[in-house]
């Protein structure tokens, strides 16, 4: 349609730019109509604050968003010299190393079990998914006040004593016992969600691949190792990435498990919690410091993502020869 001969149909030059702009059947207008509201929201609520907080990070911006005192890289220097900030990155690494593989294995295990279940699939899928609907804050309260209360009537301690053990002060920080509390909490909350993602992935694997494998004599573990896992690669990559980002964003459960009035212990402190405490804790509003911390944390997440992409891409390239 586009290469219309000019001699046959002399179009008025005025209308032509509009026609080009509209696109075929007004496609461009539709595109703009659908896309613009989203773009406006994105710019207003995501990009402007991002750029602004980067701008603020170079200023002494306490209780103001129009700072006047330029301090250069002082905020960054402060954070990078802050022992506790570096410790918090260590907490993230430990947390991620524990929660990411554990959630993946448990979610995959549940997904495979459900896949093989003869009855009650829908029921159990809902049951395992339900905790996802619970708020982190509420779950943290239940974990802190009733399940893992350090007093003798905490549920975990009651069971321990029944078994002849001693009371454990779970969250007290003198021991490492707080890790099982944090890990079990997040595992319980998120395992169902990732199970659903993996079930979706499993459903996409063609049934005849399994049939062919069965004809070749592959069963049980061998099917899992050579058929299911390789076919599930894209879902695995997505799930791992989401888990890692989720681990980096850990805030709610830590804050509500360990925080007290106006104080938070120095242990079990992931980056976001530390950043919150030193920039917005109490009544203060140090937006410059907060901005700098945001930039540093974002940089780390981006580097992690690029690294992971590169690693997975490399293994894929290797596989293809």
């Amino acid at each position, binding site marked *: 349609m586009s290469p219309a001969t000019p001699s046959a149909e002399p179009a008025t030059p005025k209308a032509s730019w509009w026609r080009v702009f509209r696109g075929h059947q007004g496609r461009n207008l539709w595109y703009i109509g659908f896309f613009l509201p989203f773009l406006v929201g994105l710019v*207003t*609520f995501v990009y*402007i*604050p991002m750029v*602004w*907080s980067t701008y603020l990070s170079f200023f*002494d911006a*306490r*209780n*103001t*968003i*129009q700072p006047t*005192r330029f301090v250069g890289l002082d905020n960054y220097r402060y954070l990078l010299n802050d*022992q*506790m900030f570096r410790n918090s990155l260590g907490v993230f690494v430990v947390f991620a190393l524990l929660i990411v593989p554990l959630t993946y294995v448990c979610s995959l295990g549940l997904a495979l079990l459900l896949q093989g279940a003869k009855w009650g699939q829908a029921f159990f899928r809902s049951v395992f998914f339900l905790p996802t609907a619970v708020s*982190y*804050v509420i779950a943290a*309260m239940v974990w802190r006040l009733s399940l893992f*209360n*350090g*007093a*003798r*009537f*905490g549920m975990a301690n009651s069971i321990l004593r029944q078994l002849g053990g001693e*009371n454990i*002060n779970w*969250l*007290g*920080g*003198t021991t490492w016992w707080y890790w099982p509390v944090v890990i079990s909490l997040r595992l319980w909350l998120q395992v169902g969600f990732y199970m659903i993602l993996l079930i979706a992935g499993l459903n996409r694997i063609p049934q005849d691949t399994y049939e062919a494998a069965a004809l070749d004599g592959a069963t049980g573990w061998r099917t899992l190792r050579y058929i299911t896992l390789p076919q599930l690669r894209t879902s695995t990559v997505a799930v791992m990435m989401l888990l890692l980002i989720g681990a980096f964003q850990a*805030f*709610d459960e830590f*804050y*509500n498990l360990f*925080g*007290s*009035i*106006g*104080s*938070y*212990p*120095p*242990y079990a402190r992931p980056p*976001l919690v530390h950043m*919150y*405490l*030193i*920039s*917005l*804790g*109490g*009544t*203060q*509003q*140090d*937006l410059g*410091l*907060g901005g700098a911390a*945001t930039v540093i944390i974002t940089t780390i997440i981006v580097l992690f993502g690029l690294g992971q992409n590169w690693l997975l891409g490399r293994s894929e390239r290797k596989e293809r020869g």
Partner: protein
Amino acid sequence: MIGIMNLNRRHLLTAASGLAATATLAACGSNKGDLGGSTSATTGSTGSSGGAKPVLNQWYHEYGEPGVKEAVQKYAADYADASVKVTWNPGDYGKKLGSALLTKDAPDVFEVEQGGTLDMIQQGQIADLTDIVKPVESQFNPAVMKRFQFNGKYHSIPQVVDMQLLYYRKSVLEKAGVQPPKTFAELTAAANKVATGDMGGFFAGNDGGVGVLGTLFIWASGLDQFDEARTKATFTQQQFYDALTAYRDFSKTKGLLQSASKEWYDGSPIANGETAMQWGGLWSMPDIQKALGDDFGVLPFPAIGAKGRVAVPFGAFGACVNAKGKNVEAAKKFVSWLWIDQEDKQVEFADAFGTHIPSKTALVQKASKLKEGPGADAAKFVSENGFTNDIMWTGPLGDAFGAAVTNVIKKNADPAQEFKKVETLAAAELKRVKG
């Protein structure tokens, strides 16, 4: 500090959303205000009474006790020279106020813990109230006024005072043959003597007390946070380190109850008989009284070491005026009327709903709950032994301090080494906040 308690308990619950929301709203809120020009507040004010009376917006955080909201609305309605609109702010009041003060929608009158932060003063967010407070300063609790003054100026009028203190079970201590402890050595001895399998000796939180007691070790060992000119930390001395190691030794005995059903800011542990002594808030006194009747007494935190002194931490909400508001003069008149002149209202506000201490010394006698018994003792402690964080005790500094205290008490770190870092940070922070 019931205010602080409520705020923070809710704060725990709303932390997650608060974090995200503040960061975004702080940027966007003011952005909108600046670009949009007129705000809804201005349109509202012209509508009511032909512009004769100025309209003042007043903010409170949510007080937990029933009746407070109605009371402050009544106070506002009683004021003749302006029409005062009260906004009750459930949720994270501190963050909400902080964000609002960056915009043109900020309230004209609002309450702030400890009478305003250093940043609020330095950024010119709260108006100088020296001319109305100075003439009557001697009427107020001296410990509170010392804290409310900055560089010889007042930016706030104290509303009510809250505090923390030591509760003990009279009958339990008597039965064990121990006196209510005046020194830390007596406290550890008493706690260990009364502790049984069912009842702990002393409880100060499920973190072993390090969170809430931290700065008390400074004051109770006879030291202060900074020197007079606020140039350096002055507590990094042997007597403070000895206090920490004394508490560390205590925390390894059965006398210190490490875990209870609730936190220190709830009266339940002592009321339920989980512990013989508990560090708690004045706000818990009605609950404890209900459960134990006369069988309890109160004390300040005991003195630690040879140069030690007893101490109680206090907190006070103060009424502030928005320096960038439209009716600064009218707002100043209103806070002066409510928090300086209207003594009946001040007594009612402190006494009728919860248990707070009126900020004017003479009014303490008029508060029914503070006339006699433990209430009267508590009120006396604030005036005589009251301490609170210095205005330049910044968030990062408090955080680093808390971390060092935890490391010493829980991880057996060497205090001198731990606090060397805090000392360096304190000097840097003091320099930084002075600008």
